[in-house]
Every structure is written in C-alpha cells, then in structure tokens.
C-alpha cells in the first residue's frame, strides 16, 4: 500500500525498543577471563540470536519511533574457549540509517506457490 498521503498529518508511530537494556554498573563488572555462564548471570542472555559466530555475543540496544532512523548502541563480548577474551562496543556512537526498501523484497509477499502440489483426497 502507498506511503502516507502527503497532505495528511503524519500518523502517530508506536515507539520501538529493541534489544537488551544494560546499565553501566552491571556492564562494568564484566571483565576479561570470565566464564560464559558468569556473563549470562550478570547481564542476562543477548536478545539478538546470531546464527553464525558462536563465540561472540552482541548486546544491541535501540529505541525510536517505528520506521525512522534506528539509533543503535552495541556491546560485543568475544569469547575464546568459553572465556571472555575481548569486550568492544561502538562507544555509544549512535549509528544506523533509515531502513531502505529493496525492489527484490516486493516478491516476498507474492511468492506463494500457485499450483497445489498435493492431490485431492480420493
């Protein structure tokens, strides 16, 4: 469906909050050499479930009205054989842009198979 008609006042956008809310003291207590379980005890499980890199946990936090530029803060904890090896964060620089639309994604809705492959019940 079309974007917002220009002459209408912009509709109220619900505020979107994503990811882990970490407070500074808890974060400060995570130090190199800690076990994975200890980290989970201290600052909880990362909400972002990354499929590939198992040895890195990303704690991402975003807040902002729906569909606008995403202000994301990130803290990543890199593990080597189950111990915390490195902690790096984007030093709270707020990065990220407006989510763009791609032409390929228009197909996502339409891709249902038209022919029903199964035969009707006898």
């Amino acid at each position, binding site marked *: 469906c079309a974007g917002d008609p220009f002459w209408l006042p912009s509709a109220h956008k*619900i505020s*979107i909050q*994503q*990811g882990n809310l970490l407070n500074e003291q808890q974060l400060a207590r995570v130090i190199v050499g800690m076990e994975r379980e200890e980290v989970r005890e201290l600052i909880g499980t990362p*909400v*972002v*479930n*990354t*499929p*590939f*890199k198992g040895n890195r946990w*990303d704690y*991402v936090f*975003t807040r*902002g*009205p*729906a*569909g*606008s530029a*995403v202000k*994301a803060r*990130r803290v990543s904890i890199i593990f080597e054989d189950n111990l915390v090896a490195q902690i790096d964060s*984007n030093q709270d620089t707020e*990065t*990220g*842009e*407006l*989510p*763009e639309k*791609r*032409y*390929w*994604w228009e*197909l*996502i*809705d339409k*891709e*249902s*198979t038209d022919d*029903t*492959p*199964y*035969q009707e*019940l006898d």
Partner: protein
Amino acid sequence: CATQTPTEVGSGTAEELYRTAKRSLNQGDFLTAISTFETLGARYPFGSYTQQAQLDIAYAYLKQDEFDNAINAADRFIKLYPRSENIDYAFYIKGVSHFSRGGSVMERIFPRDMAKVNQQWLRNAFTEFDTLVRRFPDSKYAQDSLVRMAYLRDEMARHELITAKFYYQRGAMVAVINRMSYLLEHFDGSRHVPNALALMASAYESLGQTDRQQDTLRVLAATSPEHPALEKLTKG
C-alpha cells in the same frame, strides 16, 4: 451442508449394519453413515467390523469438512487399535484434516495463503504426516504425505519471512534478525533462505553492524550468487 436428519437403522448383525453404513457412505449421505457406524460400535463394541467402522467415521467427518470430529475419530481409532494394519490411514486422515482446516467453500475462488493463516494447523499437519512417514515408510499414503510436508515446510518458512518483513517496515531490526536466524535454523535448504539472508543483512546494516552484514552477504553469495542484494557486498 447436508441438513437431513440421520435415519435410524434397525437391529441386524454387525455385518449387515456395516454394509448399510458403507452404502450410505458411498452415496455421500455422511450423516446416516456416521450414525449407523456409531450404532454398530455401541452394539458390538469389540468386533472387527467396529474397528473398520471407526475409521470410516473419521473419513466421513473429513468429507463433511468437520475437521475436529475427524481428528477425534481418528485419535480414538489409534488408541483402540494400536496394532491394526491400516493405522497409517488414521494418521493420514488426521494430517489432511489439519491441512485443510480453515479452508472453505470459497477455497476454489480465493485460495488460502497458507503462510498467513493460523500456523498451529500447519505444524499439527506436519507432525501427523511426519509420524506416518517415519512409522510406515511403505504405506500407500507416504508418498503424498512427503509432498504435503515439503509444501507445508515451504509455507512455514515463508511465514517467517513475511513476519520479518512486517517488523523490518517498522524498524524492529532485532526482531528481524531473530526471525531470520529461526528460519535458517529450522528451514535450512528452503528456497526462501536467500531472501532471508538478504533481509538479515539489511537489518544488520540498519543497526550499523557492517561486519555482521558483510558476513551475511558472503554466505548469501555462496548460496545464490546473482541475488540483487549482493550489490551491497564490498569485494575483497
């Protein structure tokens, strides 16, 4: 649907009752068939005709689009006759009932978009067909069940993709990433994986995690090299 009331059937041996019921079943008078089969069950609770009748009840309900009753009848058959040789047919009826639930007479004109309906039905149907194929690999319904399972798996994957797109439009990027890793984890090899990877890459990009984005795009390049989203992959 058929509104005539089921006609009462007099006494008679198990076999006679079964035959009259079978006749009304074939004539499509499902209500009478069901009520005659049930009288047979009450009068001869443990005969072999009753066993077959229980299965026919399930089939009759299914043809009436009464999916819940069909499933209950099939369940009762599976519980009562665990070792009967046509138990695979019972699982098949359960699977097809879940599969076609929600479908209605409008189905021919407006085919249901299975990725947008109640996903619980798809999961239930998938489990029934899966049980059938695993326990009775050489049943004559196994082949059709496999075809239906592939179709269900594809629709369930597409449901994840559509929901991820819903969250992407609203800027909930973590939700997008989680939905797409769920798809990659559960529906590996489905034809929707490339689009899932592309969407995930855009989500990472919006979150400012370019390293994750590049990792994802590299995986996408490996699986479908011409995907349009690859133009964002910085070479080298």
